[in-house]
């Protein structure tokens, strides 16, 4: 019988047949931690009795979640992680380099790789056809020590995409729509695999946005095939040699097949306090917003800043609405400066934050006050996520975020651009 993308990658890395439901041991191509999960990983590695990490060139540390550090305790965690990197000779990307998932896409992820990270949004690299998934600190510590870990080969949901996006509708609207359809646990333990004619014009930036949120439906991975788009992205990052085509077999076995016509979609908004609480931006019209945040591993890329800049250019943010922007990486920031996006955004009243997770998880750089509402381009709006359980968090695309920053309330971007 044919194989899904998940089964193919796990077959190659486990040297077993790897059909859905099997438990396999697979070798790992990259294992990483960030600054809020790394310290426990180091402690567990020490407790495990392993003196060293198996292959330092396959281990990376990213200081992104609270960066630059907002507290003494976090600064001490950062010191611990820097010492560990020096001692083990693994990679470290210090404050200001960007968000782990963006840097993994730019620097590490190859089609057919297995990537495990101590962060739930590790699934982002599925856009490059890497079997990439989040784990806890202990699993990651043992993966560092052994260079391998165990997986249950997931069953796969195939999501066929047809048609193209209407004006001002984006990948974020698609994935919010899909999570609304699936529910927050609709794909628990499953692989999501994206296919269909629309893939031919779905950019890597858009694919990264979609794969990033696979975990919000409970999925273990969100995989795109490796095709010409993948090849183009890898060569843009100076990594052409890493490209190999990778597609599912035509007779692969899918647990469920869904189809979505992109041309039928409209701007979507996820309402508090659950990502699957999705409605159209039209239905959210008029909800007052105190802070707009454009950035994160979901939507902090160059294409996202380009969309925001095009909407905000020559306009001003609403006086009572703060506008925060955090590029996903140093590369994104530099390109956004070169292209003039940063200039337009700052002129429109934006605060530019350093490349990193910024306000996303409520540790610093935009913690909300009691009763405040934030429209964010992030992936999660759980109660308390942005540092205050008395705040209301809405999720949307960079276009909807930019339009809402101008109006001071949730706004369908088609309203300000026509």
């Amino acid at each position, binding site marked *: 019988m044919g194989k899904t993308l998940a089964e193919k990658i796990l077959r190659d890395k486990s040297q077993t047949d790897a059909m859905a439901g099997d438990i396999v041991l697979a070798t790992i191509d990259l294992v990483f931690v960030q600054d809020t999960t790394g310290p*426990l990983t180091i402690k567990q590695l020490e407790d495990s009795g392993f003196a060293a990490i198996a292959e330092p060139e396959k281990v990376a540390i990213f200081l992104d*979640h609270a960066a630059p550090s907002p507290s003494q305790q976090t600064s001490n965690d950062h010191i611990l992680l820097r010492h560990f990197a020096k001692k083990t000779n693994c990679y470290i990307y210090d404050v200001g380099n960007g968000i782990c998932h963006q840097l993994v896409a730019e620097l590490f992820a190859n089609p057919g790789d297995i990537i495990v990270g101590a962060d739930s949004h590790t699934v982002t690299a599925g856009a490059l056809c890497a079997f990439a998934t989040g784990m806890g600190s202990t699993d990651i510590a043992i993966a560092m020590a052994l260079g391998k870990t165990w997986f249950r080969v997931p069953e796969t949901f195939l999501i066929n995409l047809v048609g193209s996006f209407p004006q001002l509708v984006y990948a974020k609207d698609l994935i919010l729509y899909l999570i609304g359809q699936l529910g927050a646990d609709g794909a628990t333990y499953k692989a999501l695999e994206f296919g269909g004619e629309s893939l031919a014009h779905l950019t890597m930036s858009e694919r990264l946005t979609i794969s990033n949120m696979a975990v919000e439906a409970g999925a273990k991975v969100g995989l795109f095939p490796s095709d010409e788009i993948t090849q183009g992205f890898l060569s843009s990052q100076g990594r052409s040699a890493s490209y190999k085509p990778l597609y599912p077999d035509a007779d692969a076995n899918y647990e469920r097949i869904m189809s979505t016509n992109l041309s039928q979609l409209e701007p979507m908004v996820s309402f508090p306090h659950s990502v699957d609480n999705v409605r159209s931006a039209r239905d959210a019209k008029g909800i007052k917003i105190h802070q707009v945040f454009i950035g994160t591993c979901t939507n902090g890329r160059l294409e996202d800043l380009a969309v925001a800049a095009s909407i905000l250019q020559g306009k001003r943010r609403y006086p009572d609405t703060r506008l925060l922007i955090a590029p996903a990486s140093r590369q994104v920031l530099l390109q956004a400066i070169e292209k003039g996006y940063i200039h337009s955004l700052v002129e429109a009243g934006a605060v530019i934050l350093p490349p990193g997770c910024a306000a996303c998880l409520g540790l610093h750089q935009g913690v909300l006050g009691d009763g405040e509402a934030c429209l964010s381009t992030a992936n*999660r709006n759980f109660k308390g996520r942005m540092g205050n359980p008395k705040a209301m968090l809405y999720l949307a695309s960079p276009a909807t975020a930019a339009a809402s920053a101008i109006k001071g309330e949730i706004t369908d971007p088609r309203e300000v651009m026509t």
Partner: protein
Amino acid sequence: MPETVLKGKAIKLGDNVSTDDIIPGRFAHLRSNLPELSKHIFEDLVPDFASRVHQGDFLVAGGNFGLGSSREHAPVVIKMSEIAAILAKSAARIFFRNAINQGLPVLLCDTDKINDGDQLEINLTEGVITNLTSNSRLTSTKIPPLMFAILKEGGLIPYIKKHNDFEL
């Protein structure tokens, strides 16, 4: 897994309890100081949790328990509160694996049949839950043998110390 039969009281929770509900992200700066971090368990969702929990109690949740972040600190602080096991209709993938790695049993079963305060007896080897209050029995979904072996050793660190590798 020192005990295979556990007895305790049910503390009932709802559906979709996130890792932010269990241990809010805003306390990330305390993650290298677990005793301090654990004081904030369920601070937003169950503010009186500390006064309600007794050693050996069970968390009994609805669907999708532990969704969200990969933070292993969530099962760590639950274990530190001396909760003996978690019962849920379903559990998020990363949380489920993390809990087992911490030696904290998670049993997937129909928790609608359990009320807050019910006295339960859990046989971990058989996966059977006896509700002593309503005098009824529930069977939990079997977990893969590798996960059961990790749980039996008290978590992934003791498992690896003993076996030096994963044994399928």
